[in-house]
């Protein structure tokens, strides 16, 4: 443990604000895990993708030739997105893989904290959220990645293009196609209230 603390406590030159790796992991971990979970829709796999992401980051950062990063957060997101895309690609061949059980998922993740005083509304919102997550499986890998980054992370199209290594026009096409496939779920998500009123 002593050696571990020594290594993790080392300031990595590529991290601009002289933070050590350990505290950087702590500050970014939840965000990376949630991104992986949203992309993979499986908490267990997201857990392992998060570990892979930080391990890859560590390997890259500890190389002597690594340069100071302008935006370590964005760089880490890019690693996480690529790790998830790789996993989704290899998942296509895993025909024996069972679908994640939503009850198991809920034991790992507590649902969103209540911001809505009306419990019924919250349950309904959660149900739509789950429906939306299931509907993401209808999307291609790039569509899913673009939609996830826009919907959950509120990234601009330029940022998404940079993260996915695509041009903005292609991101727009992916997002447009994703929206076409998710219109029904998005309608219930955003416009149900208007109809109820």
């Amino acid at each position, binding site marked *: 443990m002593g*050696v*571990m603390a020594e*290594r*993790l406590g080392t300031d990595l030159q590529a991290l601009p604000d002289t933070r050590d*790796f*350990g505290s950087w*992991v*702590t500050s970014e*971990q*939840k*965000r990376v*895990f*949630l991104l992986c979970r949203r992309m993979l829709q499986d908490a267990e796999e997201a*857990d392992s993708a*998060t*570990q892979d992401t*930080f*391990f890859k980051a*560590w*390997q890259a950062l500890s190389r002597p030739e690594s340069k100071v990063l302008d935006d370590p957060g964005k760089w880490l997101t890019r690693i996480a997105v690529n790790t998830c895309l790789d996993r989704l690609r290899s998942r296509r061949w895993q025909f024996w893989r069972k679908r994640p059980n939503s009850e198991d998922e809920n034991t*790992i*993740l*507590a*649902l*969103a*904290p209540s*911001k*809505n005083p009306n419990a019924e509304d919250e349950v309904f*919102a959660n149900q739509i*959220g789950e429906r939306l997550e299931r509907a993401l499986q209808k999307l291609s890998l790039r569509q899913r990645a673009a*939609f996830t980054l*826009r*919907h*959950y992370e*509120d990234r*601009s*199209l330029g940022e998404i293009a940079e993260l996915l290594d695509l041009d903005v026009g292609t991101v*727009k096409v992916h*997002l*447009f196609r994703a*929206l076409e496939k998710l*219109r029904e779920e*998005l*309608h219930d*998500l*955003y*416009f149900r*209230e208007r109809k109820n009123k």
Partner: protein
Amino acid sequence: MNHWTETDFQNWLYGLRDEDRHSTECPECRREIERLRQERRQITAEPEVPQEFLTAQRRRIYQRVESPGRNRNAIAWRWALSLAMLLLMVVGITIQQLYRSPAPISDEQLFSDLSSIEQTAEPKAIQPIHNLFEQ
């Protein structure tokens, strides 16, 4: 000018449509835009992740960072196991090919042999006696 449709609002939410003069001037569409902004903030609020889960995950990350060799060994073992399996399969198939029993005679072949025996005037057993006299 017409109000924005639901599709317009959805496209705007996802960055596929910019606001236009109507959406900035029409109070009804403006209200809807503000409502959607707020709704979106609530919908995409980060869910709680239990602290114990994060701590355990961090421990596993640190372990991997600390002993990258273990990870490399695991990958090497996985490759070695796959190669061994492949080798076993190749050896198995080769052995099977080598010791394969002769192919059984088909019914067609059997009938044609029988009919050729039947059609010869002399039985085959006479042939050695013929040979004796010929010498």
